[in-house]
């Protein structure tokens, strides 16, 4: 059986291949190796996810017990944020705005695209590195600078941005210094994603291994490719909007400032003539494709994990690829469904709700294909598979609860309520984040040569699944009752919220429980780097090209340049000696 023989044959060689003296700084800090950059992105992204989660845990204290002093910790934040330990509304707003910004732009996207994309994509297409290694380096450090700028904004007078992650004008234009920092930070992050997305597209188009034709690409690569196009084309309008908001803030122009604006009973010092809706249009022109940037890499990861653990080809692989492209294209023409409430008119609303209903079709195709992929498989319930399996219903809830928001009549009562928060958190938290966890467990052996612990993995998965639903499910109940988002007291001062307000304590305790549930993951992650079970090149008996490389792959990735001889998911092919036939196995190797 040739598959098993290839593994030990590498062992001696890859020691040698990895033997390059670059020095500590060039090898680990300012490296141009896509794997190091991928790990840098992933680790930084995970740290930001943790930080963003900490921000929201603070908020959840205020929501559960409005105005009550936070014991011990509260005093650490100082008198201008939490005097006597109880939170000021301004600080609550900062936490909310920065939680969203950090989770979306500095946590999930860098982990999903920068981390997984960088590490896995070149390996999966059999490339020695990304097409532009130095640009890759610049992309990470631009992201890093953006992150530092955002973090530093907490310490400027007036604190960080507090106009929500959407930074709606005119509020954001008249806000404090933190907003300027937010805009500069965003410009760094946009530059980073621009450099990254160009790199991903060129790498995929140009560096595919011999024999790896388009429809032999793993679905993960397709997902990253479409994601890169979204990042490439959707982010620049936000950059333009950011420049205009900077002009409004720093040069006193009135792009987003309407005529006759009165702030705190006084006429605002702007000539006016601008349009606050313009900001919303430009923002959502980015931010709706951004939603797909958050979810498509997750679909890519889940597809790999499901194919591997069901030991079956993906159901409807080609249809999935077509759906993916259609989804990517349509994501550019649905943005104003975030703006039904702005009074833009029924004609516009009719157009955008139609496109929104259309875009749900490819999403359903993707999800159904993955669900049908399970049918008749002999499923291995490994930790990555558990997370991937949980992704399906969780994303399903997130997606289906989005439909009423896409219809303008149903959106009006639900707009800006906790229902919306519940909806998109189901998509991103138990959806994308679970997929990202699946990816970490799945590719950890490739990155380190060791497996993560299965028991700790399950200890991570099951409580996380329970608690995360505890956090987000009650939000739908509160939302239906009409509780608005971004309320400093979580609705306590409103009569109509009386019946549902008690859920706040439940959700907060679930959130803190969710934090505890991440402890096994953190232990597992660090412990497995040193002490995890040692594995060979292909521990999951997978079929795609990254498993042809040694674990961990040396600089330059492959010992011998790989070639693809077959499609990506040849699992359980009748007549083959094993239940997996890797892409890198030629017909003669496979027969022998």
């Amino acid at each position, binding site marked *: 059986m040739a598959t098993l023989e290839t593994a030990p044959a590498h062992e001696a060689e890859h020691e040698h291949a990895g033997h390059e003296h670059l020095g500590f700084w060039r090898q680990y800090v300012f490296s141009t190796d896509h794997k190091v950059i991928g790990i840098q992105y992933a680790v930084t992204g995970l740290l930001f996810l943790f930080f963003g989660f900490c921000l929201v845990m603070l908020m959840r204290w205020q929501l559960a017990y409005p105005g009550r002093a936070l014991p011990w910790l509260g005093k650490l934040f100082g008198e201008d944020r939490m005097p006597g330990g109880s939170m000021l509304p301004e600080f609550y707003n900062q936490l909310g705005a920065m939680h969203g910004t950090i989770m979306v732009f500095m946590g999930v996207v860098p982990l999903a695209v920068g981390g997984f994309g960088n590490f896995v994509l070149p390996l999966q297409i059999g*490339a*020695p*590195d990304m*097409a*532009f*290694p130095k*640009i890759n380096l610049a992309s990470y450090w631009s992201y890093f600078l953006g992150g530092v700028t955002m973090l530093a904004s907490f310490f400027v007078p007036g604190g960080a941005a507090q106009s929500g992650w959407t930074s709606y004008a005119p509020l954001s234009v008249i806000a404090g210094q933190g907003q300027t920092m937010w805009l500069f930070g965003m410009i760094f992050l946009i530059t980073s994603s*621009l450099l990254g*997305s*160009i*790199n991903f*597209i*060129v790498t995929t*188009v*140009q*560096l595919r291994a011999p024999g790896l034709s388009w429809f032999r690409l793993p679905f993960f690569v397709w997902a990253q490719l479409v994601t890169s196009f979204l990042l*490439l*084309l*959707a*982010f*620049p*309008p936000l*950059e*333009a*909007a950011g*420049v*205009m908001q900077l*002009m409004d803030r720093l*040069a*006193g*122009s*009135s*792009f987003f400032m309407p*005529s006759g604006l009165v702030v705190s009973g006084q006429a605002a010092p*702007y*000539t006016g*003539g*601008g*349009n606050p809706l*313009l900001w919303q*249009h*430009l923002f959502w*022109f980015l931010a709706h494709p951004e939603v797909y940037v958050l979810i498509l890499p997750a679909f890519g990861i889940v597809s790999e994990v499901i194919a591997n653990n069901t030991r079956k080809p993906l159901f409807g692989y080609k249809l999935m690829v077509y759906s993916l492209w259609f989804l990517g294209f349509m994501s550019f023409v649905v943005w104003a469904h975030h703006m039904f409430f702005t009074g833009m008119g029924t004609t516009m609303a009719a157009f955008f709700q139609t496109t929104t209903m259309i875009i749900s079709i490819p999403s359903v195709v993707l999800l159904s294909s993955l669900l049908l992929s399970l049918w008749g498989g002999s499923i291995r319930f490994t930790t990555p598979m558990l997370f991937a399996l949980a992704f399906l219903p969780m994303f399903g809830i997130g997606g289906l609860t989005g439909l009423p928001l896409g219809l303008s009549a149903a959106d009006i009562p639900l707009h800006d309520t906790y229902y919306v928060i519940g909806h998109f958190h189901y998509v991103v938290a138990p959806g994308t984040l679970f997929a990202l966890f699946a990816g970490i467990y799945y590719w950890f052996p490739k990155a380190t040569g060791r497996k993560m612990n299965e028991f700790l993995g399950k200890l991570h998965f099951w409580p996380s699944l329970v608690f995360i639903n505890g956090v987000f499910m009650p939000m739908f109940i509160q939302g239906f009752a009409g509780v608005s988002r971004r309320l400093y007291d979580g609705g306590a001062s409103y009569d109509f919220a009386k019946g549902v307000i008690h859920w706040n304590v439940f959700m907060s305790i679930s959130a803190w429980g969710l934090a505890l549930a991440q402890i096994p993951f953190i232990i597992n992650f660090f412990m497995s780097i040193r002490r995890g079970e040692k594995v060979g090149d292909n521990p999951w008996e997978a079929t795609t090209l990254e498993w042809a490389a040694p674990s961990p792959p040396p*600089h*330059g990735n492959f010992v011998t340049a790989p070639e693809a001889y077959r499609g990506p998911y040849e699992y359980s092919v009748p007549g083959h000696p094993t239940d997996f036939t890797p892409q890198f196995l030629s017909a003669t190797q496979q027969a022998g």
Partner: protein
Amino acid sequence: MEIPFTVAERPDTGLNNGKIGIWLFLASEVMLFGALFASYLMMRIGAAPGTWPRGDSILNVPLATVNTVVLISSSVTMVMAWASLKRNDFLKFRLFLGLTILAGFVFLTIKFFEYSAKFHHGLLPSKNTFLAIYFTLTGLHGLHVIGGMAINAYLWGPGAKLWKTDPEHFTNRVENSGLFWHFVDLVWIFLFPVLYLL
């Protein structure tokens, strides 16, 4: 470790890596300026009747016309620089690329006088949305001119060492830099009528 297709073309795509990279970059630039032009439209359509000024009542059309000629000429010299490399004439390349950089410099100098005249008369972005979009668009375009000049200056100076070791790679770099320069030129060709004439 070698990255494939940095210089040679990949047979099935017919392109090298840098060429695809620069076109993708230009696509994102189209979206950046496209968003600003769209904003211009929205500002202008949304302006109260009679309040939107005609460009030529505020801006200096003759100076901008000179600048248009300067930029278009620089695009021509840019192509000649690249063509000189193709014809293996390095000295001519230096001459034409030098002229391209010089034209960028002339453009910025004229722009500087335009800007300072506006500032002098108190015509600032805060005065009205027309001036706001004027300064944003031309300012961003000016930054692109500076960026293009910086790349060309690098290729004229230290970057030209590559010509001795790998002439084809160097020629490709000049071509890509040229594509960017033409884009900068093209943006101005849209800016000039939209802001100054309409």
